[in-house]
């Protein structure tokens, strides 16, 4: 909503506040002022001039030579506008004037003739051409004849160039401020002053409107009030300059006096009106009804529109002549030759107008106001105000009476408040007098009984219906700045994180310390990616990726079942920008459902995923360089499981997973149950993503956290020495180190504490198809010092076991 301060001053005394101060006050008490913009630039040496003579320039066909009286002198001005003529009052920029855009007016010779100034168009004065009335679009501006403009007078204020516009950002509840009067009430309450209401007295003729029109409403629920007035002998022409200025300042282009007046009253009262050409209405009866299914109407914008029974129409008893509250019909539009007007002032059901406006893609100044419900008290009054203006500025004769259908409720809501409850909720120490004072400023009447106030809410404030609404009114008028700062009392909570949340942080910090960067990708992905690289612990036959009913794009249409595909896209993005080394982790949800049409929310499972590619360690001058490989990634995950004290419960199983390298992928199992996987991305997919060797992982965090023990325990530091022994075993190539280690640990119970692979050898000195795996073992009995014999015995048991299990021979 644009508010012209020059206009606002007509209703409320702004007490000399600067626009900025006023804006600040309005913002703090109720409505955010999003902008304070000067409407134009006050221009010095811009005066009203009278064109005494206008002759053709002797040396140029398209130029005119004008003698212009500017009060104290007559200036010769060369003017190229096609519409300049003798007898006009025009805006003259005298030499010395500076027009917007730093355009300095100087004396000059144009084609040999002296020119002392410029006759201005509105555009040259800084007014946006979209607000310039059609007749002045391609030429100079001419003051209307009835303008009280003395020759030589300052033209800045006549053209409203000294106005300042406040742009209000209205929240949905404050539709009362969608009118100048509404804003005036708000500002008057804030400044503790009165609102001067406009004059609604209409001079009427003897003839009764009811003889010329009847009103019948067939859908009272959608149209509780419909009022019609008839104005005769209208002369359609330009509206007065002041009215045009105010419309332009409010962002509305002036058309003609009839249209301008309905728009003006819409802005002034917040009540949309519609003027039909009475003679083209098609009958003398107004019938308001629901549209018939498939009925059509050609609207003002010359569009043929098909209606449904959800829409309300104004008809002439037969055909629709307007879509109620949205747009009038083309056939009954007011035009230059209109002489009689049927003026509509009505209350239409907000939902019905919203529906019609949406269905037809027609949002207008009118529909916006009807959608928010107009003030019942102003419907009829707005009609009267418009009739008054039509009689005054369009020479209309107003027929007596408003022909109406009236089942509208004018009842004021009553909200009861008490001073103590008010203080209780706001945390203030207001007295009854404070409340009285604020209610008076707001213009709300009340009955007081001790500290209890029964407040009658004016119909213009339809947003106030309950106690809490009054808390806001009282609070904001008291001043939010004056509410003290307190801290909540009550029992007091310890606050904090849940076990899950703490563990999540622990995991994050570990991964970051291990060298991974956290990434955040979109949960919504493409249909293809939603089905890619799903971890074996998630994937089932019946899994169905969840998709949106109305996605904005295919890119974000399906909910992910793995974070990996989008992380790969992020890696790819970086590599395309010469950032070759990527090591990401992401903690986020996947959305698991087996329903093709959801009847319940999908399971949201929190997972840890990531992508690694490029160099892992790069320290060239010491000849140390290592790219990311399977074991780099596995080491990070092992560290993570160790951090959670789950290392002994985790196993890695060689596996084939779709989208993954068939020989370099492992399923991660927790106590024998799959919780995720890690491995190299399948080279085909690497190529698709434009990636080199890339490793990914995807782990079920919830399963992992559930296994974390709450018990905190301590194992004493052993007081007896351990014994270290190395063992190198020759086995077939396909024997897994993990399996061999498992055998060693089993056979070495209870003395072997530790078995670490420290060498893997294949090649010379070993038979074809064999490899040597060397383990470093540590034997310990925490209760005593082991003897050589005891260690030897345990060692032999291990050798026997691995021989039996894997035909392992001690390497000679």
């Amino acid at each position, binding site marked *: 909503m644009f508010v012209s301060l020059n206009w606002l001053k007509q209703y409320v005394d702004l007490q000399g506040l600067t626009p900025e101060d006023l804006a600040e006050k309005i913002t703090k008490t109720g409505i955010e002022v999003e902008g304070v913009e000067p409407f134009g630039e006050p221009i010095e040496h811009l005066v009203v001039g009278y064109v005494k003579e206008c002759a053709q320039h002797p040396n140029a066909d398209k130029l005119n030579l004008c003698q212009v009286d500017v009060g104290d002198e007559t200036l010769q001005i060369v003017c190229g506008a096609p519409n300049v003529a003798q007898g006009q009052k025009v805006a003259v920029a005298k030499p010395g004037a500076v027009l917007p855009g730093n355009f300095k007016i100087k004396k000059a010779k144009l084609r040999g003739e002296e020119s002392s100034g410029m006759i201005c168009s509105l555009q040259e004065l800084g007014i946006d051409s979209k607000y310039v009335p059609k007749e002045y679009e391609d030429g100079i501006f001419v003051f209307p004849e009835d303008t009280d403009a003395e020759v030589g007078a300052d033209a800045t204020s006549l053209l409203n160039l000294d106005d300042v516009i406040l742009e209000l950002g209205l929240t949905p509840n404050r539709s009362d401020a969608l009118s100048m009067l509404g804003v005036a009430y708000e500002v008057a309450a804030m400044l503790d002053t009165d609102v001067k209401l406009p004059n609604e007295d209409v001079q009427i003729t003897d003839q009764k409107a009811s003889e010329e029109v009847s009103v019948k409403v067939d859908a009272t629920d959608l149209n509780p009030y419909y009022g019609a007035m008839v104005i005769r002998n209208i002369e359609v022409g330009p509206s007065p300059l002041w009215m045009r200025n105010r419309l332009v300042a409010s962002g509305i282009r002036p058309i003609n006096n009839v249209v301008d007046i309905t728009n003006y009253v819409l802005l002034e009262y917040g009540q949309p009106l519609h003027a039909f050409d009475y003679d083209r209405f098609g009958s003398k009866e107004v019938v308001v009804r629901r549209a018939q299914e498939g009925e059509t109407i050609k609207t003002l914008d010359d569009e043929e529109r098909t209606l449904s029974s959800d829409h309300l129409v104004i008809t002439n008893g037969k055909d629709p002549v307007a879509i109620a509250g949205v747009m009038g019909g083309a056939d009954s539009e007011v035009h230059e030759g209109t002489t009689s007007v049927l003026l509509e002032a009505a209350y239409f059901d907000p939902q019905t107008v919203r529906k019609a406006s949406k269905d037809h893609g027609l949002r207008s100044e009118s529909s916006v106001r009807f959608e928010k419900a107009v003030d019942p008290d102003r419907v009829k009054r707005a009609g009267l105000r418009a009739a008054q203006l039509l009689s005054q500025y369009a020479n209309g004769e107003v027929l007596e009476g408003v022909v109406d259908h009236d089942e509208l409720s004018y009842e004021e809501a009553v909200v009861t408040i008490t001073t103590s409850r008010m203080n*209780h909720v706001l*945390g203030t120490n207001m007295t009854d007098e404070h409340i009285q004072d604020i209610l008076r400023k707001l213009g709300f009447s009340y009955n007081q009984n001790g500290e209890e106030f029964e407040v009658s809410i004016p119909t213009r404030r339809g947003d106030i219906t309950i106690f*809490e609404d009054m808390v806001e009114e009282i609070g904001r008028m008291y001043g939010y700045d004056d509410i003290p700062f307190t801290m909540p009392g009550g029992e007091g909570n310890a606050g904090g994180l849940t076990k899950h949340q703490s563990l999540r942080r622990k995991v994050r910090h570990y991964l970051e310390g291990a060298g991974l960067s956290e990434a955040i990708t979109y949960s919504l992905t493409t249909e293809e990616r939603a089905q890619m690289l799903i971890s074996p612990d998630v994937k089932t036959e019946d899994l169905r990726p969840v998709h949106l009913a109305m996605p904005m794009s295919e890119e974000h249409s399906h909910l992910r079942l793995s974070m990996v595909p989008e992380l790969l896209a992020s890696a790819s993005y970086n590599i395309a920008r010469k950032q070759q080394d990527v090591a990401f982790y992401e903690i986020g949800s996947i959305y698991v459902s087996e329903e093709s049409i959801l009847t319940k929310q999908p399971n949201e499972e929190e997972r840890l995923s990531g992508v690694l590619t490029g160099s892992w360690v790069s320290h060239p001058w010491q000849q140390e360089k290592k790219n990311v490989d399977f074991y780099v990634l596995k080491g990070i995950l092992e560290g993570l499981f160790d951090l959670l004290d789950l290392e002994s419960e985790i196993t890695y199983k060689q596996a084939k997973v779709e989208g993954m390298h068939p020989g370099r992928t492992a399923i991660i199992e927790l106590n024998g149950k799959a919780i995720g996987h890690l491995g190299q991305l399948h080279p085909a997919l690497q190529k698709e993503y434009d990636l080199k060797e890339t490793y990914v992982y995807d782990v079920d965090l919830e399963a992992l956290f559930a296994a974390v023990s709450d018990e905190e325990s301590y194992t004493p530091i052993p007081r007896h020495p351990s014994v270290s022994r190395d063992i190198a075993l020759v086995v077939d190539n396909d024997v897994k180190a993990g399996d061999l280690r498992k055998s060693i640990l089993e056979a070495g119970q209870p003395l072997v504490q530790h078995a670490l692979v420290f060498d893997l050898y294949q090649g010379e000195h070993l038979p074809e198809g064999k490899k040597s795996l060397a383990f470093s073992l540590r034997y310990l009995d925490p209760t005593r010092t082991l003897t050589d014999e005891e260690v030897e015995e345990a060692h032999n048991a291990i050798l026997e076991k691995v021989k039996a299990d894997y035909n392992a021979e001690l390497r000679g």
Partner: protein
Amino acid sequence: MQERLQELKADALKQVEEANEVKALQDVKVQYLGKKGPITEVLKGMGKLPKEERPVIGQLANDVREEIATAIETKKQKLENEALEKQLEEETIDVTLPGRPAPTGGPHLLTNLIEEIEDLFIGMGFEVAEGPEVEADYYNFEALNLPKGHPARDMQDSFYITEEILMRTHTSPVQARTMEKHEGKGPVKIICPGKVYRRDTDDATHSHQFTQIEGLLVDKHVRMSDLKGVLNAFAKQMFGEEREIRLRPSFFPFTEPSVEMDISCKMCGGEGCSVCKGTGWIEILGAGMVHPNVLEMAGYDPKEYTGFAFGMGPERIAMLKYGIDDIRHFYTNDVRFLNQFHKA
């Protein structure tokens, strides 16, 4: 004999003086102080001396022995020190060569900010509550005083999956769920961080996915002044002690009164600049007193309980704090962006 001893001493000290390595010193030691050395010889011959001279010579012999031993030891120390110094000299490295890079990972800027905010509120006794991102219409809208048909819940603005299930548009449903779980009994004191989704086309200022942190306190005597106090404490800790806050009336369906909180502009200190668009204030979050309908629907008696709620966007805060100009940066995962926020 005395002369002989003095002579021996002088010779020995000279040899010590001349020795250039530990080995040579060792030889001197063996030569003079060994069991077959001249001093031992002298001592052996003492029996031939008159009785009264014996102690004098004995004393002298011991002194000489001592003196030579000390000289050898001192010289040895010196030589060893020299050798060590030489070795250390040779071991000198170029300390300006680069070190072996340690792994450098780090959190995402948003996570960092969210954790910081979580910790601030945890310090004030809040718990962190989380909930599903795919929500029931009831919790996302209805329970928050946004009944079906409400203009603020247009199908166009939300990602619906079915008529009853959608991507949550804010984290407020977590509040509704948490209150419901408390079965009408207070206090509830939570903050709810998480991802939310709106039906927007991604551009520099819009993202179809973003994060939100909302807070809720419901108890028997929660006042609007408490909201002011908590938000003030938050703003000062988050943005600096010298920041002021102000509340302005606003509108949200789930709070009444509703306010927006501004903080005084850091760039200009409230004077007005391009960052605060000349107002001296920067909008940070929305808040308000929990609407009685919301309390009631969650099973609380609004006559007995009151509450406040607030909500903020970490992206917006990050953009303000760091001058980030495009919201898409948060989700592109450009390492040149991410790495900048790994530093403390």
